[in-house]
């Protein structure tokens, strides 16, 4: 005589029945798992959303911007770029555009009453007419500087420091503010700068005409090739005195820092999950102790040891799956809320969702196995006498 197999639907109903008979306890022990899974899902989700946002911004900004700045000479003095370096760079095949700013040694004051030296840390830069299109700058308000007349455009930080002024005082002359820039992510040095026209700087401010930063955009596929020839092109006589950098790399480097932080938080989530698993195991052990009579009855009704064991494992699996599903959902909602406040896209990778559910299955199986084995080992006569 062979024992009949328990159908899967019956097994699920059995597991569910054990949980439904003590709903509060089931909810509380599932909550432990839910918090762990929610924490891990949210951590992965938030870091993925942040990365997706960064990727979106990088895609919008472009990763094909390279900057050229003078380094130092062999003797440790500040080097200068030749005046013609911009036009030389523009002649490199894959280069789409090249433009420059030049440092002007004069100081910028809010009014003529401000004592000399109190410049507020603002830099004064002479800008080529096509600066904005190359660096991806956008005017918050106003218009771009007039190249010939004493006009300025303020960087975002500079505008905040100076306040809403109609003009600024430079070298004994009032310069009209024609516009203000949005922050420029790929050229953050422009944010704290006051920009004047290249020609106006030469006319009114004794500007020497040397570019101090050259910005250049190239065909995406050729960026690295352009990068390798930029230094000798900008300053053929001494390429060692030229520094070339790729601003989008700096933004991308933030990812690495994010990853470390994410790993730490993931560890915390794993600890919460472990504690949740112990909670489920505890619930199951107590459940087995309390349900000796039920175990005895089931054995007398013809349940094999294996069927009793399977029943309790199924109950534990259901319990932790319940917690896992709630946790994944909660983690997704938390990610969504956080991402929305940061105006990030909400991205929770599928592997985080699958991993969350998978982890709960493993935890449920491990947590339920020992109590289930104890339940199955219980002799029917002993179970019925209790």
């Amino acid at each position: 005589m062979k024992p009949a197999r328990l159908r899967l639907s019956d097994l699920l109903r059995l597991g569910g029945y054990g949980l439904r008979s003590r709903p509060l306890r089931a909810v509380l022990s599932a909550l432990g798992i839910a918090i762990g899974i929610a924490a891990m899902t949210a951590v992965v989700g938030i870091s993925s959303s942040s990365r997706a946002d960064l990727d979106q911004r990088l895609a919008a900004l472009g990763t094909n911007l390279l900057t050229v700045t003078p380094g130092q000479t062999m003797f440790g003095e500040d080097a200068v770029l030749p005046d013609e370096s911009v036009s030389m760079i523009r002649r490199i095949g894959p280069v789409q555009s090249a433009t420059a700013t030049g440092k002007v040694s004069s100081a910028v004051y809010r009014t003529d009453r401000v004592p000399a030296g109190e410049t507020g840390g603002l830099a004064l830069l002479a800008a080529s007419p096509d600066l904005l299109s190359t660096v991806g700058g956008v005017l918050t308000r106003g218009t771009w500087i007039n190249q010939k007349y004493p006009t300025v455009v303020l960087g975002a930080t500079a505008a905040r420091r100076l306040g809403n002024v109609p003009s600024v005082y430079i070298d004994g002359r009032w310069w009209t503010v024609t516009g203000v820039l949005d922050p420029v992510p790929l050229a953050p040095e422009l944010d704290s700068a006051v920009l004047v026209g290249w020609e106006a700087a030469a006319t009114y401010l004794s500007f020497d005409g040397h570019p101090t930063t050259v910005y250049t955009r190239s065909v995406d596929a050729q960026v690295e090739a352009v990068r390798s020839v930029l230094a000798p092109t900008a300053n053929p006589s001494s390429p060692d005195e030229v520094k070339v950098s790729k601003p989008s790399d700096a933004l991308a480097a933030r990812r690495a820092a994010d990853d470390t932080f994410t790993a730490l938080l993931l560890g915390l989530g794993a600890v919460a999950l472990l504690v949740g698993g112990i909670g489920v195991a505890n619930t199951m052990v107590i459940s087995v102790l309390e349900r000796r009579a039920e175990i005895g009855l089931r054995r007398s009704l013809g349940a094999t040891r294996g069927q009793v064991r399977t029943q309790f494992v199924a109950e534990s699996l259901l319990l932790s799956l319940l917690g896992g599903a709630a946790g994944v959902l909660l983690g997704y909602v938390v990610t969504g809320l956080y991402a929305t406040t940061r105006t990030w896209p909400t991205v929770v990778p599928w592997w985080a969702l699958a991993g969350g559910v998978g982890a709960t299955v493993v935890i449920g199986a491990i947590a339920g196995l020992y109590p289930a084995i104890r339940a199955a080992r219980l002799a029917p006569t002993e179970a019925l006498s209790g």
Partner: protein
Amino acid sequence: MSAVIELAGVTKAYPGGVTAVRSVDLTVEYGELVAIVGPSGSGKSTMLHLIGTLDRPTHGTVRIDGHDVATLSDRQLSALRARRIGFVFQQFHLAPGRDAVTNVADGLLYTGVARKEREWRAEAALVRVGLGDRLTHKPHQLSGGERQRVAIARAVAGDPAVLLADEPTGNLDSVSGAGVVTLLRELNEAGTTVLVITHDHEIAESLPRQVPMRDGQVMA
């Protein structure tokens, strides 16, 4: 294979030197209604466990429905219980919060019958024990006598070769108890072999055959 229960020289000794049942011979034919009667400590509960294949004897052979218990594995014994033995306990052992039909249908869970069929048979069994109007009542909505009837319905729903009732009236008042005994008698008349274990001589004497026990032995 005419006897449903055959015990030959059965002894059950527990570690620690307690011998609960001592060289018992007992034969119960199909269709009988038998009472095993004795005071507490006489070994009747151990008899129930041995006959119900919940425990194995230390010595001797137990044959239930023609199967020698000693030759069957734990899994095979489970299958034997599922299909050929029905249990009724003093404490009813009904699942709280589940209605009568579900409780009775649960008794067929390990027989491999599909759910619809189990429920259908459970309803028939409940009608048989006179609870046709209590199908969806939950245990706490039923009287003690009605609960025991649900338990009896669960035991007979699978049409077992033998129904084992362990002090079925122990938790009931005399009126409900008498009703349960009457029900067992009716089931027996309809063909079920019934073995009642009780300490109550009055109940035992109302049944056709008594097996008196004392100190682990059947008294002639």
